[in-house]
């Protein structure tokens, strides 16, 4: 207590569910000079009206205490003031900060992608509805064996930057080609929640970039293709060349409104592929995409169009 502390507010809880009641008491110690014996205690929420408490009573040792219950705290953040009347002025004795919000919902749609350029595993999720309270999200993970039944050593928590719903686990914390269990934990003063758990090997969720597709120019050493045919060449995305991949070509005549024609199961590297069955007069749009073969993986997006 400071030298001559006059008033002090105590509240039932500094943070409550939005709309829940909150009870506060303001007590004035007798040794607060300037005040007459039975000072009238008043309350004010933010810049609302000054109002009497529900009850004011005189406690042992001459302490005056007023108690008030706000039935529904609808401010996510508000100041509650305790006043006393001194002559014709009101004097603030104490101020309490009230907060209201919601406990965090379960983070949803957790998904991860392995970035081969930065060699980091990037996971993102949906945080769920606004809680109006400072809420910390943490991406937690454990190394594990087999299909994630047994957890082994924990990986360092990944804390996203403020307000972001993704986090990047650096290479040095990853054990590639082994499964790991990953989930998101959300926490604020009103509670904690956890997302569903993923069980994945980072190398099975590689974000694959499309291959590079070229048309082979006609040159002396290249046997010209038969009529209605084209020579094509392609190469997988460089950082992924250590992965066995299978690719797919699709082509479509321009302006004819026809749908795409697809050529599946192409090798990841094509030195000279002859595409036939084309109308010589038409211009064709060609695209290619690849996927890890024989092992789990995601399709890359389609490569930029090649016009021929």
């Amino acid at each position: 207590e400071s030298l001559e502390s006059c008033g002090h507010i105590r509240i039932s809880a500094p943070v409550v569910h939005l709309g829940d009641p909150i009870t506060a008491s303001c007590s004035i110690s007798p040794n607060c000079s300037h005040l007459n014996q039975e000072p009238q205690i008043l309350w004010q929420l933010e810049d609302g009206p000054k109002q009497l408490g529900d009850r004011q009573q005189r406690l042992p040792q001459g302490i005056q205490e007023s108690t008030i219950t706000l039935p529904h705290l609808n401010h996510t953040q508000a100041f509650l003031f305790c006043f006393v009347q001194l002559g014709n002025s009101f004097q603030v004795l104490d101020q309490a900060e009230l907060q209201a919000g919601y406990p965090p919902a379960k983070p949803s749609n957790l998904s991860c992608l392995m970035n081969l350029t930065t060699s980091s595993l990037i996971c993102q999720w949906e945080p769920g509805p606004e809680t109006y309270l400072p809420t910390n999200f943490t991406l937690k993970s454990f190394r594990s064996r087999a299909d994630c039944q047994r957890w082994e050593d924990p990986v360092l928590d990944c804390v996203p930057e403020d307000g972001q719903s993704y986090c990047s686990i650096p290479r040095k914390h990853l054990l590639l080609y082994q499964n790991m269990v990953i989930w998101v934990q959300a926490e604020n003063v009103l509670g904690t929640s956890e997302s569903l758990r993923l069980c994945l090997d980072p190398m099975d969720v590689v974000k694959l970039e499309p291959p590079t597709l070229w048309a082979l120019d006609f040159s002396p050493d290249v046997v010209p293709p038969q009529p209605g045919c084209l020579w094509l060449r392609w190469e997988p995305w460089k950082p992924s060349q250590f992965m066995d991949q299978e690719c797919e070509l699709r082509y479509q005549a321009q302006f004819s409104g026809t749908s795409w024609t697809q050529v599946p199961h192409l090798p990841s590297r094509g030195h000279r592929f002859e595409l036939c069955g084309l109308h010589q007069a038409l211009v064709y749009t060609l695209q290619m995409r690849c996927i890890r073969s024989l092992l789990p993986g995601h399709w890359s997006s389609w490569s930029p169009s090649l016009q021929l």
Partner: protein
Amino acid sequence: PLPLPKSFLLKSLEQVRKIQAKDEVLLEQLCATYKLCHPEELALLGHSLGIPQAPLSSCSSQALQLRSCLRQLHSGLLLYKGLLQALAGISPELALTLDMLQLDVTNFATTIWQQMENLGVAPAVQPTQNTMPTFASAFQRRAGGVLATSHLQDFLGMAYRALRHFAQ
């Protein structure tokens, strides 16, 4: 012979290719940065520094034995992991490639070790790291780096052939 799961073989082959690619990058960077481009010119120095080479005799096609081949593969990877660690601080430009290479070698060693455990052929205790050469000068550390990286490339070539053999 002991059956090796297809996914283990496919993942191991991919890990070897991943390490070979990174190992090649480190060799190119050592050549570009320090003009040390011919490992064969460092043989004498390698001998005097005591840079070890990991044996893969049980993985050669003539004398292929799965159990001891996996063991040699695992302890060879630990050896090169140690050698690469001795190169730490070689230079900021190479540090990133070196770190990534070390992590990939370490992760591949774990893949092999866990498969040995699954097959029940893993020794009771993981082999400890052998003593690493000490480098008395920046040049010796660089030359050691070139030798270790070039030996690792040969080692991975033999490992790849053995794994492909198991896969057939």
